[in-house]
């Protein structure tokens, strides 16, 4: 994990967010990896108070792991690169939360991120989570008023009614987890610790040899699971749907199909449109969350949600909006049951990874989730048997038995009977199951039709698409074609490659040489005799996605850190001016204190910064595809 550029990037991110002191401590720890306080002082040239306060604050922000050794009693500190890296993803995470659970939930989440980990009781006291006098947190309230006109009267009640349900919704989605003590130790330390405990157990001591190893490994894993487990979803999920799920599409998101919220109970109470969005969870929302519970953000789960969103984007390219909607419902259902993106720590090598299916979701459940007002039939086209038309050939094999008795579908669309709707949802999902992407796959479990997602397959697909996109951008479409041929056929000599790709030798060689110098393809020599004469040697071109992926990942880290450095430089150039805008009297009333020219400059600076930060977040998306999904 800790390659040169990822380490650099993490240190820069820490500096961007928390300032130089944290960055100094962090980069020292990254360089030397595991240090006790005196050693850390020696290497970082900081004073003890600086270090103590810095480290303590960094532990609070989960940027540093610590471990107190049983042997010598020293406490060692290790950097937590994952947490540092995820600083770059906070924007995405908060936006996702807002999209899923509303503005207030995003505010709560932002408070949790800001505090590192926090007890629920302390969250109650935070001023920005109180819908208190409007002038204090006017920024947040103003944007919020849209759907909640009654937010300002009855504030206390509204507040009490909102924080805990929101927290519960976050917990039920798995976006926040309980903090355990073992979360503050690095994974390796946890493993060693668990092993030590287990080896001391009398029943293990009796075992020997291979049996001992096996037993220790097994027991260690269970113990780790027990210790690291911070799952809060228990008891908060009903029928596979977490509580607090937004019930109806927001008015402002209405025209954007990807942003449309779920609407399971929309038919039940249509009239209280402006009510608080949690109002139907009256069952046991009066029970607040325990105030001693400590929560933190669960990045693993958020990755799952972000990955699903990515799948949705992929589907969006060549499907209708209704299909996307259906797919969104399926993905949501799956998200609730998926706790992390994959089991292993590292992405397995190409061709060596097994398939990992998502939890199967019954067709009827998806059909229930789909907005009843959604016009499903219109985008599928007439299903008349007499019009086999353009989609006939693309149907999966099991489609034939569905083909009879569906002639009336084109006419009746929204208010069709439930059976018909289920069938239509099924049709949409089968559309998605088509190649090239195979976004879904069908299973029959106990006679019930259900749908799953082949996670590994899709993650690989995303990776390949990303690499192909980059190759096309760099070397043109000829290169893309060659890469695809090489990827499909394996290693090829130049002649075969030329035959398959139907390109003139000249183009071919030029492009191949270019790509070789860029590290995307490589040449293998296979000598035909012992002398290894070039004339009697076969040269095979090949494309190794794993290798390319890891080098691209490094490049991406490097680009991100360069972007951050650029940002820092640009800020240094405007330092005096920016300090002026940040003055406590200027901030907030820029119009009053700044001149015309300064206002334009500020605007320009903000646009520039947004562009750079946005670029970093795009690059982060690539990193996510290549590393996390």
């Amino acid at each position: 994990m800790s390659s040169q550029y990822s380490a650099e990037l993490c240190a820069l991110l820490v500096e961007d967010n928390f300032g130089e002191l944290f960055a100094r401590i962090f980069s020292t720890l990254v360089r030397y990896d595991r240090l006790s306080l005196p050693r850390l002082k020696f290497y970082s040239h900081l004073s003890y108070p600086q270090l103590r306060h810095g480290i303590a604050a960094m532990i609070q922000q989960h940027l540093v792991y610590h471990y107190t050794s049983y042997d010598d009693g020293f406490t060692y500190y290790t950097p937590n690169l994952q947490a540092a890296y995820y600083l770059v993803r906070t924007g995405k995470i908060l936006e996702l939360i807002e999209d899923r659970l509303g503005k207030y939930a995003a505010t709560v989440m932002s408070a949790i991120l800001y505090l590192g980990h926090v007890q629920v009781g302390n969250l109650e006291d935070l001023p920005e989570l109180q819908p208190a006098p409007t002038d204090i947190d006017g920024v947040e309230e103003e944007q919020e008023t849209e759907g909640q006109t009654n937010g300002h009267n009855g504030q206390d009640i509204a507040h009490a009614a909102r924080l805990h349900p929101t927290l519960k919704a976050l917990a039920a989605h798995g976006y926040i987890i309980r903090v355990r003590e073992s979360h503050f130790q690095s994974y390796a330390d946890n493993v060693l610790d668990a092993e030590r405990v287990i080896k001391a157990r009398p029943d293990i001591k009796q075992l020997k040899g291979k049996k001992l190893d096996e037993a220790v490994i097994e027991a260690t894993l269970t113990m780790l699971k027990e210790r690291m487990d911070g799952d809060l979803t228990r008891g908060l999920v009903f029928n596979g749907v977490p509580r607090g799920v937004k019930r109806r599409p927001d008015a402002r998101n209405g025209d954007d199909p990807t942003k449309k919220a779920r609407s399971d109970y929309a038919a039940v109470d249509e009239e209280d449109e402006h009510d608080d969005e949690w109002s139907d969870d009256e069952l046991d929302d009066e029970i607040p969350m325990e105030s001693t519970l400590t929560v933190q953000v669960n990045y693993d789960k958020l990755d799952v949600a972000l990955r699903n969103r990515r799948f949705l984007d992929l589907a969006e390219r060549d499907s209708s909006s209704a299909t996307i909607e259906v797919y969104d419902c399926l993905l949501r259902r799956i998200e609730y049951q998926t706790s992390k993106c994959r089991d292993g720590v590292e992405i397995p090598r190409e061709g060596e990874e097994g398939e990992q299916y998502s939890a199967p979701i019954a067709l009827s459940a998806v059909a229930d989730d789909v907005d009843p007002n959604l016009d499903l039939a219109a985008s599928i086209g007439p299903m008349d048997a007499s019009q086999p038309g353009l989609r006939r050939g693309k149907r999966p094999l099991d489609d034939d038995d569905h083909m009879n008795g569906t002639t009336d579908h084109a006419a009746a669309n929204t208010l069709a009977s439930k059976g018909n709707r289920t069938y239509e949802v099924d049709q949409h999902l089968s559309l998605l199951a088509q190649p090239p992407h195979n976004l879904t796959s069908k299973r029959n479990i106990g006679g019930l039709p259900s749908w799953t997602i082949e996670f590994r397959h899709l993650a690989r697909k995303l990776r390949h698409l990303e690499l192909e996109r980059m190759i096309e951008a760099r070397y043109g479409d000829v290169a893309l074609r060659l890469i695809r041929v090489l990827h499909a056929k394996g290693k090829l000599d130049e002649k075969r490659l030329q035959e398959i790709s139907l390109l003139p030798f000249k183009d071919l060689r030029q492009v191949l040489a270019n790509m070789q110098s860029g590290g995307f393809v490589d040449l293998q020599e296979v000598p035909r005799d012992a002398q290894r004469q070039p004339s009697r040697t076969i040269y095979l071109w090949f494309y190794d996605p794993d290798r390319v992926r890891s080098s691209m990942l490094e490049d991406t880290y490097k680009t991100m850190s360069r972007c951050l450095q650029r940002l820092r430089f640009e800020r240094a150039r405007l330092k005096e001016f920016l300090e002026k805008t940040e003055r406590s009297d200027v901030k907030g009333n820029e119009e009053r204190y700044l001149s015309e020219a300064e206002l334009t400059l500020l605007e320009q600076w903000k646009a520039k910064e947004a562009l750079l930060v946005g670029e970093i977040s795009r690059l982060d998306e690539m990193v996510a595809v290549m590393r996390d999904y």
Partner: protein
Amino acid sequence: MSRFGAKKGRKLPGAEFSWDTDGNGEPDTAPTPLFPKFSVPRARPLSARERLQVDYYRGLRERYHDGPYYSILDSASTAAKKGSVARVNFDSFHGMPTYSGRYQRKKRTIPRMGGRSYIMKFFPRELWQTIQPTFKPDAAMDGYAGQFARATAKRGFEDDEEEDEEDETKRKRTGGEEEEDNEKDILDGEEEGEEEEIVDDDFEDDEDEMGGDYNAEQYFDGGDDEYGDDGFGDGGGGGGDEETY
């Protein structure tokens, strides 16, 4: 390449890029164009969603910056000890305290730990005193003492270097304690000032405290916010803004 006996014009891959081709002919010495045409790739503009993400990122970063943990390294000021690095690096052109400096964001060199509660068991024992100055290292707390009882036990085979190091650190620690005390005083002052800002606007008792030791260097960043609020109509506005973050 043909010297290795390749047959009948069948070129080996990469033959046209070999070194040989340059050897015979005149090398191309024509100057390359000074500013060759180069199409600069431009990032596409941010979409609405990306803009929102960026805003969230900036918002959170801003909060971190305004929060108690944001701290910088060089706090060059005339208030620093004589002969210290901070004093030497002082920028005498821009660093002088100015009147408008009172509105400037205060720069911290040490994260402020006060002002919020911490869950002690999540932190290593050696930091407990940092987090909670009232903590007594000797007293057992929450039953966690037993776990670390062997903390200082030596195994007896550490090399001398390590012991030296320890001694050194001990020495330094005692030296550092004074430093820490100094720091703490400053910190405390700051803490109270900050806390005061957040909690209430009753600054009477603070005034008494601050009135005693007049420090010209800290004239603007000590407890002057209170005075400012009195004197100016707009000063209150500035203070109010800080509270929102």
